[in-house]
């Protein structure tokens, strides 16, 4: 196995172009498990941890862009206020030690249907910036996940950064697992309210071959939510929302849970998360008024 150690993004892209089979390693929290257990024997590893550009971030009035190799701990501490949904999801990843190393770029690279950041990226209209020696592309999160552990990257491409709007309203993320820490989601749900556009984004994880947006449920919210003079949501509306979310799922039975349980749990998560987010929005509106 060859170990490639680029110190700049340009160099990393040249190396990836020359060795498309080289496996990028950022936090290593997915790659190392595969190496240690011989699930994978790559001919080469491409170490991204020395590429400073990949661990930086920037923001303007409306948009935050952060490097693919920014560890979760820094994302939470430095960008948590602008990206509350992503921060909530990031806080549930693994353990403090995992979060000190693991990255959103790695979550996207692995593209596990259970990855915790995916539903938030979908609900928040994130764009995945990728690059190769040939040039750059911007891939909306909704077009990034192609199948179980498959994403839209070409062999010579690297994820460089993730770009998403600063939150303009409350965001929530919830996942079901056997305990509060160190669990891969049985199923997960994210919602981001976008009051500036009078709509909400919502997405599910670990409940279909890919993380996915739940468009019907989003449309339902567009119909029922009154952004101008927000009222308490009737239980019937929350329940209906939960049903629509669950109906978008195509879960499987596996060791972590049955398909039926996942659908049931998703409806509950969706109903609750909507309630939390909408109540927070109403609170905010009241205190502004």
């Amino acid at each position, binding site marked *: 196995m060859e170990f490639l150690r680029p110190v700049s993004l340009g160099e990393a892209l040249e190396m990836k172009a020359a060795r498309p089979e080289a496996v990028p390693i950022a936090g290593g929290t997915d790659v190392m498990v595969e190496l240690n257990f011989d699930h994978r024997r790559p001919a080469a590893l491409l170490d991204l941890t020395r590429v400073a550009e990949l661990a930086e971030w920037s923001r303007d009035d409306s948009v935050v862009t952060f490097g693919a190799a920014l560890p979760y701990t820094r994302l939470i501490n430095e960008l948590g206020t602008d990206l509350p949904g992503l921060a909530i999801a990031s806080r549930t990843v693994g353990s*403090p030690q995992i979060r000190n190393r693991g990255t959103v770029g790695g979550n996207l690279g692995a593209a596990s249907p259970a990855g915790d950041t995916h539903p938030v990226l979908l609900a928040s209209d994130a764009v995945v910036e990728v690059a190769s020696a040939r040039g750059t592309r911007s891939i909306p999160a909704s077009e990034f996940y192609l199948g179980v552990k498959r994403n839209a990257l070409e062999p010579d491409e690297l994820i460089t950064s993730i770009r998403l709007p600063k939150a303009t309203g409350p965001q929530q993320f919830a996942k079901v697992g056997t305990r509060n820490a160190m669990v891969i989601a049985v199923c997960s749900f994210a919602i981001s309210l976008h009051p500036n556009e009078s709509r909400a984004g919502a997405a599910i994880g670990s409940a279909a071959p890919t993380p996915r947006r739940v468009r019907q449920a989003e449309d339902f919210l567009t119909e029922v939510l009154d952004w101008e003079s927000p009222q308490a949501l009737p239980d019937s509306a929350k329940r209906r929302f939960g049903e629509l979310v669950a109906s978008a799922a195509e879960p499987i039975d596996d060791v972590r849970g049955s398909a039926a349980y996942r659908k049931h749990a998703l409806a509950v998560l969706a109903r609750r998360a909507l309630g939390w987010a909408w109540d927070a929005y109403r609170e905010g509106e009241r205190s502004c008024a």
Partner: protein
Amino acid sequence: MTPQRSAYTRRTVLKSTAAATAVTHLTSAPAIADDGGTSEITLSVNGQRHRVAVEPRVTLLDALRERLGLTGTKKGCDRGECGACTVLVDGERIKSCLTLAVMRQGAEITTVEGLARGEELHPVQEAFIRRDAFQCGACTPGQIMSAVACINEGHTGSEAEIREWMSGNLCRCAAYQNIVAAVADAAKETPR
């Protein structure tokens, strides 16, 4: 920066030459290659610099235990789940089974062997003994390293907070109650 070529086999040299040709216009040739071959790297552990010969696929955990003889750091699962292998890298806690030794050159690594000052134990070590925070002891070095970081991070405000922020360290003997008490004790004594 030139790669170390000390232990290259003929095949490796051929392979890495081919790779180097493909990227000749780069300013540096920062590849470390092996095919069972090794590279010499420098690891800075507990304030001491060590030259070690490792293959790229050797984890920091294995390098510490098997190359440097620092067996205080334990291997429980080798997959990031148990926390027995927790060490500090530039002050941050990480799982040493989930990082390659070659990725940690230039970083300052602290293992459980590096905590005591001579005969004087670190306050966290003292607290673990005082509170009887272990039974078999297999998880203890990892718990202690994690606790040192947890205290430095300021995540010791309540028992619940300690439990949450120590959640990356499992204890098969279930000494959790006493571990939490030890961390709380040590947090009180440690000026941040």
